[in-house]
C-alpha cells in the first residue's frame, strides 16, 4: 500500500457538523417527544366486549418486570458501544490488524492541526451510526405504537370498562368508544401501547448490530468458538428478552415478532448499506478490484514473463509433485 495514506479534507468537519449532527439532533428530539411527552396522542382503539385476549392479569408496572426497562436500555445502549470501542482500540493496537485498518482507512487532515486518524474515524462512525439506529428504532416503535394503539393483553384488567346500556348485549359487539375506562389513567395509557414491542425491537437491534460488527471485524484464528458463542449468546439474550415480554403478558406474540423484524431490519440496513459491513470507506473499490482478480485465473507462472521465474516455478512444482 502506498505510504501516502493521508488525505486533506476541509469539508469533513463542516459536513459532520451541519449534516450528521443536525440529523442526529433531529432524531433525538423526535425520540424525546415520543418518549417523554404526550405530543402524539395514542390512537384510541376499540375492543370487543369481554375479549378474552385482553383480560390477562396485570403483571404490575414495567419496573417490576424481570427485565426492567432502565436496565434494558442501559445494556442495549452501553454494551455495543463498549464492544465497538474495545474492538476498535484493540484492532488499532494489534499490529496485524492495524495494517489492514490503516490500509482501509485514510488519515484525514483538516486544517493545520487536526488529524483524524483511522481509529477516531471508525469509532465515531460506528458508534454514531449505532446511536442513530437506536433512536431510529425507538422512533419506529413509538410511531407504530401511537398510530395503531393496539391494546396490551392486560388492557381490560386495568381499564375496568364501565359497560353501560347496550354495550355488551352481544359477544361480538365491538366497542369503539374506548373512553369508558375507570381504571388508573396512566396505566391505561400505557396499556394502549403494545404494537410493536419496544423491548424486543431495541434488544434485537443492538444484538444484530453487535453481531454484525463482531462477525465482520474480529478475526480470530486461534479460537474458533469464541466468536460464534459471543454472537449467538447476544442474539439469544435479545430473543429471550422478547419472549419474556410475552410470558409476562405485557405484549402479544405478534407485537414481539413485529419488534424483532423491525429491529433486525434496521440493524441490517445500517450495517450493510450505511457502514458497509464495518469495512473502511475505501474497502469497496478495493474489494471490487480483488474480485476482478479473482475472476482472473490466479496462476503465477504463465503470467511471469521471465523464464527464470517460470523455470524455477516449474522446477518447484515438479519437485513438489514428485515428492507427493
Amino acid at each position, binding site marked *: 500500500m502506498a505510504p501516502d495514506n493521508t488525505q486533506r479534507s476541509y469539508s469533513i468537519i463542516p459536513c459532520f457538523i451541519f449534516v450528521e449532527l443536525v*440529523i442526529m439532533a433531529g432524531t433525538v428530539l423526535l425520540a424525546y417527544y415520543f418518549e417523554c411527552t404526550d405530543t402524539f396522542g395514542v390512537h384510541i382503539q376499540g375492543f370487543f366486549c369481554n375479549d378474552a385476549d385482553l383480560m390477562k392479569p396485570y403483571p404490575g408496572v414495567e419496573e417490576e418486570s424481570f427485565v426492567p426497562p432502565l436496565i434494558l436500555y442501559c445494556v442495549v445502549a452501553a454494551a455495543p458501544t463498549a464492544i465497538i470501542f474495545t474492538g476498535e482500540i484493540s484492532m488499532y493496537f494489534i499490529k496485524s490488524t492495524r495494517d489492514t485498518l490503516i490500509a482501509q482507512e485514510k488519515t484525514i487532515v483538516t486544517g493545520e492541526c487536526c488529524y483524524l486518524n483511522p481509529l477516531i474515524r471508525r469509532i465515531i462512525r460506528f458508534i454514531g451510526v449505532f446511536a442513530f439506529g437506536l433512536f431510529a428504532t425507538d422512533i419506529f416503535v413509538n410511531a407504530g405504537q401511537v398510530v395503531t394503539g393496539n391494546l396490551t393483553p392486560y388492557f381490560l384488567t386495568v381499564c375496568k370498562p364501565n359497560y353501560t346500556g347496550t354495550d355488551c348485549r352481544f359477544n361480538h359487539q*365491538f366497542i369503539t368508544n374506548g373512553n369508558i375506562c375507570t381504571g388508573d389513567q396512566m396505566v391505561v395509557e400505557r396499556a394502549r401501547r403494545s404494537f410493536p414491542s419496544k423491548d424486543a425491537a431495541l434488544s434485537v437491534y443492538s444484538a444484530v448490530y453487535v453481531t454484525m460488527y463482531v462477525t465482520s471485524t474480529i478475526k480470530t484464528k486461534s479460537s474458533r468458538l469464541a466468536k460464534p458463542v459471543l454472537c449467538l449468546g447476544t442474539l439469544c439474550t435479545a430473543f429471550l428478552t422478547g419472549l419474556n415480554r410475552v410470558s409476562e403478558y405485557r405484549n402479544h406474540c405478534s407485537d414481539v415478532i413485529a419488534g424483532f423484524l423491525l429491529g433486525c431490519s434496521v440493524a441490517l440496513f445500517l450495517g450493510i448499506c450505511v457502514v458497509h459491513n464495518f469495512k473502511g470507506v475505501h474497502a469497496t473499490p478495493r474489494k471490487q478490484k480483488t474480485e476482478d482478480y479473482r475472476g482472473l485465473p*490466479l496462476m503465477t507462472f*504463465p503470467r511471469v514473463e521471465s523464464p527464470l521465474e517460470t523455470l524455477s516455478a516449474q522446477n518447484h512444482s515438479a519437485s513438489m509433485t514428485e515428492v507427493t
Partner: protein
Amino acid sequence: MISPKDKPKKKPPKDSLTLLPCFYFVELPIVASSMVSLYFLELTDLLQPAQVGFRCHDRSLSMPYVEGGDELIPLLMLLSLAFAGPAASIMMGEGLVYCMQSRLKLRPGAEGSINAGGCNFNSFLRRTVRFVGVHVFGLCATALVTDVIQLATGYHAPFFLTVCKPNYTLPGISCDTNPYITRDICSGQDQHAILTARKTFPSQHATLSAFAAVYVSMYFNSTISDSTKLLKPVLVFAFAIAAGLTGLTQITQYRSHPIDVYVGFLIGAGIAAYLAFHAVANFKSSEDAARRPARPPPKDALRALTQRGHDSVYHKGHASESNDELSAPQRLDGMNRQVPREKVSLGSLKRASVDVELLAPRSPMGKENMVTFSNTLPRVNTPSAEDPARRHMTIHVPLDPLRSKQLVSEWKQKSMELRSMSLRGEEGREGSMDGSDSGDDGGEEELVMPSSLYPTVQASRAGTGAGGVGARVVIPPRPGAPQLVHIPEEAPPVSPKSCSGARAKWISIAEKTGGPIPAPGSLRAANQPRIMQVIAMSKQQGMVAISPKSSETSSSATSTSSESPHYRPPSERDSSSIVTVDAHAPHHPVVHVPSGNGSPWEWKGSANGSASEIREGYELNDLNREASRGYRPVKSVSPGSSASDPDLEPAAHSDLASETRSRESTLRRKQPHLGQERDIAPPQTEQDPFYRKLQAGWRYKEGN
C-alpha cells in the same frame, strides 16, 4: 478494447433515431393501457369480486365501518402521495446530481446527452424521465396486481358484517346448524360499501405505499454517496415509516386485516425491487451496467493457465497502448497490485502444477517445453527456415557455464539479425526467400551456438516450411509465430485428435474470456530488474551502431519496456502477444511429446545425471532464456550490435530500416484485424471473431 476508464469523460451527444419513436409507441402505450385498466378495475364495477362465504357473527368481520369521508388516507390521496413523494424526491436528487456534475468529477457511468428529433435530451432529463416513468408504471402495475388479487380472492374486510347487515332469518339459513354462510344474504343498503368490503386482500394502501417507499429507498441507496453517513438512513427511514404507518392505519381503521397489510407490504416491496433491479438497473446508467459482463470463474487450472496467459497478453496490450503508461508511478501501482495476487495464487499454482504434471506424466521436458512456448512465443518473430542439421549439432555441445554467457550474447546478436531479415521476409512475399536465405547464412556462420540455447532458439526459429502439420492449425497465424511448428517436428506422433481438442479448448476459452482486463503494466513491472540486466548486457556487448532513433530508444531502454514506440508500435506487441495466448492451447501436443525423442533437454538429465548438474543446466537455460527474452526488448535498439560480427554488420545496418518498415507493414497487415476489432467490437465479443479472423489470415498466408 476500451476499458471504462479510457472512455472519454465528456461524451458528445449521441444521435438516436429510435429514442422518440420507442418512447412514443412502446413506453407510452404500456403506461396508458395500464392506467386505463386500472381505472376500470378500481373505479368501475366492471368486474365483480369472487363470492366467498362467511361465518355467522364473525368477530373479525364485525368491526365498525369508517365512512369513506372519515378515512385517514383515502385512496386518491394515497395514490397522489405515493406518486408525488418519490417523484419529487427523484427529481430533486437528479437535479442536484446534475448541478453538481460540473463541480464533482463526472462519474464513470455518467450518461451523455442524446439528440433525437431535433431536441437535446441531457442526462438530467433522461434519468428523471426514466426513473419517474418507471415509478409511475410501477404504481400502476402494483395497483393492477392488487386489484386482480382482490377480485380473485374476494375476502371480506373487517367491516363486512357491519355494512352487510346479514339477514340471518332468511329461509334456509340457520346459524345453529351450519354457521358458514355462502349465500348472499346482505340486507345493507350501501352497495358500494359492501362491494368495497369484499375487496380487501391484499391491502391496496399497503402495496402502493410499500412500492413507493422501497423504490425511492433503493434510489436513495444507490444515489446518495457515502460521505455523509446519516442522510441516507434518515431519508430511507422517513419513507419507510410513512409507508408502514399508511399500512397500519388500514388496520386501525378496520379496513383490512393485519395479514392483508403484511402481504401487501411484501407484494409492493417485491415489485419495487424487481423494477429497480431490472428495469432501471439499480439506478445506474445503462452504459455502466452493460459494460460489466460477468466473468465466469475458470473451471480447472489448465484452463486457468491458458486464460491467464491470455489475460496477461491483454495487460501488455494495455501497457503498450499509451506511452505515458510507461511512466514510473503506474508501474509502481502495478507492482502493488501484483503482490497480493501472487500471494493468493500460490495455492492455485500448486494445483495447476499438479494438473500439468498429470497431463505430462512422462518427463519434465514436456513441461519445460511448454514453458518455452509460453515465454518465447510473444517475442519470437524470427521465422527463418529451420536448419535441422544445426539443431542436431547443437545438442551435443557440452555445457560450459562461462562460455555460455558469451554464447548467449552471440546468439543474441545473431538472432537480431535473423529476426530483422526474417521480418523483411515477412514484409514482402517475394523477399521472404531472400530474407530466410540470408538468415540461414547468418545462422550457419555460427555453428557454435550453445545447445542450451536451443529450446528457445528452436522455438523461435521453427521452420516456416514445416507448416501444415497438425498442431499448426491451432496456431493463430502469424508468419513470425512458428514456435508451435516445431512441436510437430519434435513430436511427430502428435495426434490430430489432441490438436483438435486443443483447438476446441482454445475456442471455448476464447469464448469465455472477455471483458476489459484491468491493471495494465503490472506484468511488465515485475520483470523490470531482469530486463535491465539484460539490457545492460546487450549494451555491454556493444551497441556500436545505434540507430538514428537511438537517443530515445536508449532512454526508453532504461525503462521497463525498452522498446521505442517507433520500432515497436504497441499494436504490434499486441499481435505478437496474442500469439502467446494461442500458444497455450497446444499444451497437449507438447505434453504428449515422448520423452527423449531428440528433445534438446535430454542431455542435461541423461548426460550429467546428478541433480546438481541438472540444476546447473537449468541455470544455464535460465541465462539463455534471459538472453532470449532480453533480445526482445533490445532488438530494436541494437540490430547493429552485431558489430562483433563484421560480416553481418552492413546487412544489419541495412536491415534496420527494413525492420522498421517490416514491422509497420506487419502491423498494418495484422492489426487491421486486431485494431479494428479492438476499437469497434465490445470486449466480450472480441475473442471469437478475432480467432476466426486470425484463422482466415493464416490461410491467406499459407496460400502465399
